[in-house]
C-alpha cells in the first residue's frame, strides 16, 4: 500500500475560491461541529495539518431518521472507499450529498468513531476517561436541541483516513495518505444536517498522536 495516492481520475480539484465562501469555520482539534447545508450548497473540509480524522455523519434535514448509511453508500457504488463521484446514500436510499472534488484520494467509512467504551476494549479499560468522538457527537446533538440522541449516532465517514481491507478479510489501519491542505468537497443534493467530530484520539498513530484543527467552508448554490 503506497503511502500517498498521487494520481488517479478521482483526484479532482475544485474551482471554488475560499474568498467566495459564505461560511468559514476552523473546528479545533477534538471539537464537534453541527450545521445545516442547504440543497445545492457546497461543503469543503480542509485537512489543515494533514492526516486528521474528521468523523462525519449526515442527516436529511427534514427527517433525521433518514440518515447517512455507510453500507448503502458502499453497496450502491460497489466500492469500499469514498472519493470523487461517490454519492452519500441514506438509509432510505436518498442521495444526501455527492463528492465533487477530492485532493486526498480515499476516505474510510468502515472504521467508525472512537468512544470511551470502544477505547476500553481496544486499548485499556483505564482509558475510559479519554475524550472520544461519540461523546462529541452526543454533546453536539444535545445542544442542537431537536430531539436527537444516541439512537441517531450511527456508522460514520472518516474523512482523510486510510483503512484498507485485504483479500483475506483483514481490516488494516494504514499510514495516512492525506497531507496539509488536502480537502474533500461535497454538493448537498437535498437539505442536510452535517455533524462532525474532529477526532480527539490519542491512542492511534493515524494522526501521529496529535489531533489538529480542520476548516469547513460552505459556498452558496450555483444559481
Amino acid at each position, binding site marked *: 500500500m503506497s503511502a500517498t495516492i498521487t494520481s488517479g481520475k478521482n483526484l479532482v480539484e475544485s474551482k471554488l475560491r475560499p474568498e467566495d465562501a459564505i461560511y468559514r469555520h476552523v473546528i479545533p482539534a477534538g471539537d464537534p461541529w453541527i450545521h445545516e447545508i442547504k440543497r445545492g450548497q457546497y461543503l469543503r473540509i480542509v485537512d489543515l495539518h494533514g492526516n486528521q480524522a474528521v468523523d462525519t455523519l449526515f442527516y436529511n434535514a427534514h427527517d433525521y431518521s433518514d440518515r447517512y448509511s455507510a453500507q448503502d453508500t458502499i*453497496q450502491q457504488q460497489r466500492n*469500499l472507499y469514498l472519493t470523487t463521484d461517490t454519492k452519500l446514500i441514506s*438509509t432510505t436510499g436518498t442521495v444526501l450529498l455527492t463528492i465533487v472534488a477530492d485532493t486526498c484520494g480515499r476516505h474510510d467509512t468502515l472504521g467508525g468513531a472512537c468512544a470511551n467504551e*470502544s477505547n476500553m*476494549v481496544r486499548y485499556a479499560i483505564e482509558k475510559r476517561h479519554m475524550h472520544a468522538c461519540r461523546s462529541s457527537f452526543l454533546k453536539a446533538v444535545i445542544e442542537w436541541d431537536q430531539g436527537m440522541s444516541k*439512537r441517531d449516532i450511527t456508522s460514520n465517514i472518516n474523512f482523510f483516513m486510510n483503512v*484498507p481491507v485485504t483479500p483475506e478479510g*483483514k481490516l488494516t489501519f494504514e499510514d495516512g495518505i492525506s497531507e496539509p491542505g488536502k480537502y474533500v468537497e461535497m454538493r448537498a443534493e437535498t437539505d442536510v444536517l452535517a455533524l462532525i467530530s474532529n477526532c480527539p484520539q490519542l491512542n492511534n498513530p493515524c494522526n501521529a498522536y496529535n489531533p489538529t484543527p480542520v476548516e469547513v467552508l460552505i459556498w452558496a448554490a450555483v444559481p
Partner: protein
Amino acid sequence: MCPMSETPNLWEELIQPGATWSHVLKRGTALRITDVEGGANVGGLFYNFECPTERYNMPDTLKAQHIARLTAGYVLYSDMGRILLSITGDTVGWHDPIGGTSNRKLVESKYGPSSYQKDRNEYHKNGHDSFLVELGKWGLGPRDLIANVNFFSRVDVADDGAMSFHAGNSKAGDYVDLRAEMNVLVILNSCQHPLDPNPKYEPKPVRLSIRQVASPQLDDPCRISRPENGRGFTLTERYFL
C-alpha cells in the same frame, strides 16, 4: 469447539425463504443457523434487549478484531464496549459484515414487479422493509436501523476497493453458532444478499435451533482470540454484576 452438541435443542424452527424472525436470545443460550439448501443469506441486527439503544456496532466489531469477515473465534460488539454474541462454531468460514441489505427499489429493479395481490406469500421481500417490520414489533423503528450482518454470504474487496459477491460461499448443511453473552434481541430475515448477481428472486430457507450452553470459561476461544476480546468479556461480565 462448541459445547452446543452436548445439550438438547430447546426448540427448532424454519425461517421460510424471504421471511422475517425475531427473538430475545437469552444469555446462556446459543442459536444455530443452518443453511438448508446452500446459498442462503441471513441478514441480522442485534440489540441489548434491556436497553436497545445499546446495539450491534459494525465498526467497533471490525476494528477491535482487525477483521472484515466474521467466523468462529470472533465476537459481535455492541456500541458500549460489550459483547452481544460470540461466534462459537462455523462451518462456512466467512460471513459478510459490510455488504448491507436490499431495499424495495433494488429488489424491484433486479427481479421485476411483484405484489401480494398477484403473488400471495411468494411476493418479493426486501431486507430494509423486513428489518423495519420486525423492529416495529418491539417498538423500534428507523432510528434503530443500523449496519447489519449477512450470514452465509461473502463479499470480496479488491485493492482498489471494488466489492464483489463471492458465489458458492455456503453449502447445504453449513451452520453458524451464536452464543448470547447478553440478553440479545435478534432480528433476522432470509432475503437475498444485495450484491447477489442471481437474476432470479430465489431466497433460501434456514433452520434455527436454540440450546442451553455453558458460560464462557477463562480459556474460551473467543475470549483468548485477541486481547481486545478479553477486555470485552470483562466489561460484559461486569454489566451483570
